[in-house]
């Protein structure tokens, strides 16, 4: 009895190639979308961190203004200044630290009429280095779960 193997014809080959192309496209598409999503979440967290420090800074300004209004002389001003405030002559400054290594540096010049003028308001962040990128298949399976 003659036995003939099932032969893969040109149609099977074509379908296999098309499927491989589609699979490659899908993998690239999913990994790009996953990276976009991670980036958007990172942006959202950084924005929250920036404005958490902004709130701290505005509260510090309110406390400074209250201290300037209540102080009668320089000695009493030093005791009334908000915590973590350094006064050097007519200049007061503070460094507010955020939860993720970000910090806000504020400096204000005290004016002769008992007020203040903000001369520095800058945020900075320490670069902690790039995180290890997730493995491609870990990303894919994580995204599809």
């Amino acid at each position, binding site marked *: 009895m003659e036995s003939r193997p*099932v032969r893969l014809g040109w149609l099977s080959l074509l*379908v296999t190639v098309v499927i491989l192309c589609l699979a490659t496209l899908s993998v690239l598409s999913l990994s790009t979308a996953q990276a976009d999503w991670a980036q958007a979440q990172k942006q959202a967290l950084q924005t929250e961190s920036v404005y958490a420090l902004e709130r701290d800074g505005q509260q510090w300004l*309110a406390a400074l203004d*209250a201290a300037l209004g*209540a102080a009668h002389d320089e000695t009493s001003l030093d005791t009334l200044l908000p915590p973590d405030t350094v006064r050097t002559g007519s200049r007061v400054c503070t460094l507010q630290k955020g939860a993720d290594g970000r910090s806000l540096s504020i400096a204000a010049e005290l004016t002769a009429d008992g*007020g203040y003028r903000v001369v520095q308001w800058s945020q900075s962040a320490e670069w902690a280095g790039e995180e290890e990128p997730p493995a491609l298949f870990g990303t894919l399976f994580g995204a*599809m779960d």
Partner: protein
Amino acid sequence: MHKSRRGAAFYVETILLVLFLLLSLTVLARMLGTARQLSREARQLSCAVRIAQDAAEQLAASDSREDFAVLLGARQTEDGTLARAYNAEGAPAADAIPAAYTLLCRLEETAQPHGVLLTAYFTVCNDSEALYELETQKYFCAQPGK
């Protein structure tokens, strides 16, 4: 006999090929669907963050609560919340046009010895859910020129 065996082999091959095709397409369709959903969510979140950030910067640049409302170009709702419509690209849109995003801003004033500390709660939402929330503050000195 020989011809019918070859015919059966052809049918078996065709069935296997179709099954493989269907299985592959099912998996790929699921992957592409997931990618599309993730991409849409990422775009919406990114846009919502930008809208909230713009509004927070407008508060930082304003000199009073009224000044902020004018800068934001928002309408006031019945409960006192400021609302502003945005299109799909995150640009301010006219209220008459159905908005892709809506920015809601609730303001709370806290009296300070020599001024007011204004807290703004921003919520950016689409037609079904809140996408992003941001809280910021601005201190308004009662005598800014002193």
